[in-house]
């Protein structure tokens, strides 16, 4: 149903097992950060790995999802389910609008347009009163899920985030392993031929783009509830750059690559925070090393070594 091969099923079960076990050993808030980053990276991977579109503006969708969820939780006191859904919907709507403008171009021009559009979203967030500018939306309550699960408890929050992540992960792979996904793959391999077969490639690309943006919005919204804050950092281009780094490091176009990338990047940021400026240098160095020698990313290289597709 998800198109997993046997090694991939085993990998998936191992991942779920870790998700279940880790919060008893490690700090749950850190793990939630990893899961949100992983979902974001998976959504990005959908576009770059399976459709072949590099977007440099994913932060716009992640951040706007984050703001909308934060706003609705704080001022309308909605249930967490609704808030996160609204975050996802914001990502999707924004994705359709911006995607419609950007899809007409490809390659480097697509990347530059997405960067420019994301910058405009950043500017909007900077000036619009509802985002709180530099302060962001602070003191977002954890609230309740489905009316009865109290999310103020870190562990309860963790299980919710884990559920969101796993659903998102499976959704992506359901999309890939479907007739729709097959067409996407065809478009990536040879777009003119796909067009000649009668497929309206722009429409397919736009739908994939929108789905990716929706999941980015969900990731952003979840993150806002976990940390109780939505700020300009979420819409800044460095967040866009970071998701590219995460996916590249983990392995573009692989199933578990984005997840692995998120684990490594979050752990690294956590560990290096005490060293101040060295975080940027290390991130840059990893970029360089990955591009030169390690292009398939951690999971990709591992998969190539064991001759598995992970």
């Amino acid at each position: 149903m998800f198109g997993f091969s046997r090694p991939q099923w085993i990998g998936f079960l191992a991942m779920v097992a870790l998700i279940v076990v880790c919060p008893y050993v490690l700090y749950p808030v850190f793990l939630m950060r990893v899961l949100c980053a992983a979902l974001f990276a998976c959504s990005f991977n959908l576009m770059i790995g399976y459709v072949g579109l590099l977007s440099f503006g994913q932060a716009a969708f992640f951040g706007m999802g984050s703001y909308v969820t934060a706003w609705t939780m704080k001022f309308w006191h909605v249930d967490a389910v609704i808030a996160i859904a609204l975050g996802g919907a914001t990502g999707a709507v924004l994705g359709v609008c911006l995607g419609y403008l950007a899809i007409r171009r490809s390659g480097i021009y697509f990347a530059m347009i997405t960067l420019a559009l994301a910058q405009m979203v950043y500017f909007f967030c900077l000036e619009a009163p509802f985002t709180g500018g530099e302060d962001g939306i602070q003191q977002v309550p954890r609230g309740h899920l489905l009316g009865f699960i109290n999310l103020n408890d870190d562990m309860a929050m963790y299980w919710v985030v884990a559920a969101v992540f796993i659903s998102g992960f499976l959704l992506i792979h359901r999309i890939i392993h479907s007739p729709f996904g097959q067409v996407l793959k065809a478009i990536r391999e040879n777009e003119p031929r796909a067009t000649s077969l009668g497929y309206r490639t722009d429409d397919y690309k736009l739908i994939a783009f929108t789905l990716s943006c929706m999941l980015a919005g969900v990731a952003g919204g979840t993150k806002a509830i976990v940390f109780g804050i939505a700020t300009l950092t979420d819409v800044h281009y460095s967040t866009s750059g970071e998701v590219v780094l995460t996916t590249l490091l983990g392995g573009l176009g692989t199933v578990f690559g984005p997840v692995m990338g998120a684990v490594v990047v979050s752990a690294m940021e956590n560990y290096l925070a005490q060293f101040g400026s060295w975080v940027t240098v290390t991130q840059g160095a990893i970029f360089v090393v990955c591009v030169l020698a390690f292009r398939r990313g951690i999971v990709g290289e591992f998969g190539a070594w064991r001759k598995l597709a992970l």
Partner: protein
Amino acid sequence: MTISRRTLLTTATAATALPLVRARAQTPSLKIGVLNDQSGPYMNTGGATSVACTKQAVEEFANAQGMKVEVISADHQNKPDLAVSITRQWFDRDGVDMLLDVPTSSVALALQSVAREKNKVYINSGAASSTLTGEQCSPNFIHWTYDTWMLAKSTGGAMVKAGGDSWYFLTADYAFGKQLQADTSALIKASGGKVLGAAQYPFPGTSDFSSFLVQAQSSGAKVLGLANAGADTVNSIKQANEFGVNRSMKVAALLMFITDVHVLGLDTAKGLNLTESFYWDLNDRTRAFTKRVLPKTPTNYPNMDHAGCYSATLHYLKVAHDMGVAEAKKSGVETVARMKKMPVEDDCFGKTQIREDGRNLTPSFLFEVKQPSESKGPWDYFKLVASTPGDEAYRPLADGHCSIVKA
């Protein structure tokens, strides 16, 4: 086969994250976390020197009294969400009892609720926003060193009195800049002056202020008010000189530290008016303190932010010693209440009092930057123009609308 390899890989990665799990300390010792900008535009304002001053206070008091105190620090990179993340970890896992420094108003505000939720002590030396002791006040919080209202009154008020009754603002377009402009405008109008206009430039990311400066010149105002900080202030002053703005207008740097003057150099900064609550060369006591701490921070003399970290730590340790360390660790609210009751005294600020809303009433000094010819030694930059005692320097208690103040 595949199971064990795959699990091995992920377990190895989890293992590298293991340093995150640590056993709690067994003996009651205090832990202070200094959180500030160590790599961005405010790294000289706070940064490593704040940590050095905190450690100085620990050395002087705790070691003499046999208390066990640990000081850790981290870089918040001026990002509220990163700061929230680090602070939660510090409080939840690392057993930090007191959060210190935290410049950048947006970050400072974000941490109010975290400190309150975890019932820890939060003392802010580096941020400016006066809402921290106003609408956003908290029983776990003390604003130690300065704020936007104090700066507005001292620099703004004094300049209006000296004849600068028409102003044009160059404002960083975010909460801090707008607040500073608002507080200063209110004071100018109350003193009978006028605000002729303002240019709000995108923050961050603007390094060229030439067109805004030209607009200021053409407005005909007598004073150019710089409602910005750090690198922006440095750049706007340099460019103001370049365009000859300082020939027709007086330049008021509403938030500027001695560390910024050092970067600018006296040639460019001469004649500027600014307010700090501490100057290393002000009196014998400040000189003595500076001499003690300088070996730990040889390239950077302490400014009011740094002095605030020293002073706050010293007072906290005195109170913790008085209460007993175990009691102090238990409740942030109790500890802060004791800190408000005990009068503050140290070499940096002399005798001050912490008010009910968490405002420490330090005196404010209006300085003028010396001409290069007047400066006799390293960091000899300021001459004192006016001083305001602590109880007059800050916004009156009633005007702050702080919820924890009993009416």
